[in-house]
């Protein structure tokens, strides 16, 4: 399937732009030869388990995963192109109003709820991985994601982004959905203040929400994103 998939991609799409390349991965923007519609094509080394689970799911806050194939630790994914600006680009223009930040956080919670319902953890929630498509916030890039395994003590590979990664992502124990809650708390604070919570905590109720999200002990954070959503509303 992997080789056939790559052939089909070559036949039906033109490469428009290489968006990102690392030693482990490559992300390209493709354009369908007939319709002209854009798609995202990912090639990376790792597990495609999360993308496989997302194949059958539709959620406005997650990109549609259309096809995925794996071979010898290499994963190929075709997903919808989410047209919009990344949140980090928007934040270059300044911080967001509390209402907007709250709305984005709520939508990301919805995306995370879907992911966590599939026993998946994103592990890389940050402004660069959030695209604002009109009124919708879409969480993208599941290359760092993993499936939570009950009998596993620690994550096999440490991934995430400095400042956003929850303490447990540094390998002490296995990460679960509360690691995403930590990252979302940091993200919320940055939307409101432009700074990491350690430098300047957002004021008022949203600041308290950030505090709870970013507790070192996962047991002291929100139990799951639904509790966080309730506080955000």
């Amino acid at each position, binding site marked *: *399937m992997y080789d056939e*998939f790559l052939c*089909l991609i070559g036949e039906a799409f033109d490469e428009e732009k290489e968006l990102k390349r690392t030693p482990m991965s490559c992300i390209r923007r493709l354009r369908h030869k007939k319709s002209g519609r854009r798609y995202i094509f990912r090639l990376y080394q790792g597990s495609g388990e999360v993308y496989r689970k997302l194949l059958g799911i539709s959620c406005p806050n997650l990109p549609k995963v*259309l096809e995925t194939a794996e071979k010898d630790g290499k994963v190929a994914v075709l997903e919808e192109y989410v047209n919009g600006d990344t949140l980090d680009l928007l934040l270059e223009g300044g911080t967001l109003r509390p209402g907007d930040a709250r709305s984005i956080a709520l939508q990301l919670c*919805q995306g995370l709820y879907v992911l966590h319902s599939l026993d998946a953890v994103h592990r890389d929630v940050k402004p660069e991985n959030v695209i604002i498509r009109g009124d919708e916030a879409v969480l993208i890039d599941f290359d760092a994601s993993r499936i939570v395994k009950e009998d596993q003590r620690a994550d096999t590979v440490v991934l995430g982004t*400095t400042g956003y990664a929850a303490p447990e992502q540094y390998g002490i124990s296995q990460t679960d959905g509360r690691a995403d809650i930590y990252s979302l708390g940091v993200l919320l604070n940055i939307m409101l203040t432009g700074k990491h919570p*350690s430098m300047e905590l957002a004021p008022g109720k949203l600041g308290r929400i950030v*505090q709870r999200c970013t507790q070192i002990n996962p047991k002291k954070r929100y139990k799951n994103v639904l509790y966080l959503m309730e506080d955000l509303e």
Partner: protein
Amino acid sequence: MKQCKNCHASLPDDALFCPYCETEQIEKMQLSIPHPRRWKRLLSLLLALALTVGLLGVLLTRSQNRTAPDAPVPISTESPERPTPNPEPESVKDAVSTESPESPTPEPEPEPVKDPIVASPEYWYRAADGMTYEMFLTFDPENDADKLGATEKQRFRIPQGGKGQTVSALCVYPNGFRNSNMETLHPHGALFSTLIDHIDVEAIGEGGSHDMKVSEPVFDEKKPFATAVVTVEYDSYCWFNELLWTITMKNGDVIYLHQYLLVEEMDVPAGGGLESHDMWYNAEDSVIYRLFLTFSESESDAEPEGSIALPLQDSSLEHLTSHLCVLPKLGSLSDNANFLDLVDHIQVQTGWIQHGEVSFDDDWSLAVASVVLDVGQRKSADKLVWSIYMKNGDIITLHQFFYGAS
């Protein structure tokens, strides 16, 4: 090979998308996201139903086991009081009996004031009686009530290692009456009280095993300017010491006022500190490290601990280990060794507790150093100070406290 259901192009057997006509070959499932409140209401409804069934079961059993008249089992002749269920969520409406219970009147959500001030201890409020009142919070209603300036009133300094209590008072001056005598103020202060529906005072603080405790508000009619007073028991290890007063007026207005209790004279190293035993540090390598102290015996349970209670009567606990934990930059736990490369030397100091040398040879990956403390001899309190001298001249100070507990 199979055929696309739309354009009949040849596709691999397990293909889910046709790249030729861009048609998905499967129906995608739309996961519904439960509304948090509806989800909780559903849970409450299920619990209420379970309780009702249980109660009916008990009452039925009692009526079957009714004994002789001279030893009556009290049985109510009225139908059992049905516990009031929470409003049904839409998704389960059809599944519930058609005999709909009397819907409880939901508590009206308080309407926020038009210009709520969220982070201030003072607010000018236009009340329903047409008067404008100056409302403010103070920790010292006897002396501060006639002082101007919000900053003195909104912060209370807690001495490090200190536990104690203070009062927080809501004071109200009718506009223009600030310098009036008590006889003039009294009727207006009392009048304002009649406009209040209720007051909630919440301590927003978390800190290991120590949380602030706040009493119920007492409406002090003797003082015209102190409308309500609460007593706050504080502890310097509460992480975030904030008092939130929520004043709900009878006309539906809700006013929020804040005060803060701060630990005084805390050493704040370069990069900022959150707490005396848990802080962020901006290192020379431009990485934000989180440093914290813990007494935890297991790495997986390690969390910041600023204090520990030592049982005075139980002398079986002879040694404790304090670990200095550093959350490393991204990569692997072995990278917290990079933090040690930035350190010149580490000192620990205590009062009466004996301690060993700082050890860098720790079994934990999370901890960069540890020290063993001899706590066999009990006394009332002591302090452990970690001083981390960085090569760039910064000094990071972290504290832990010991309390003798009966």
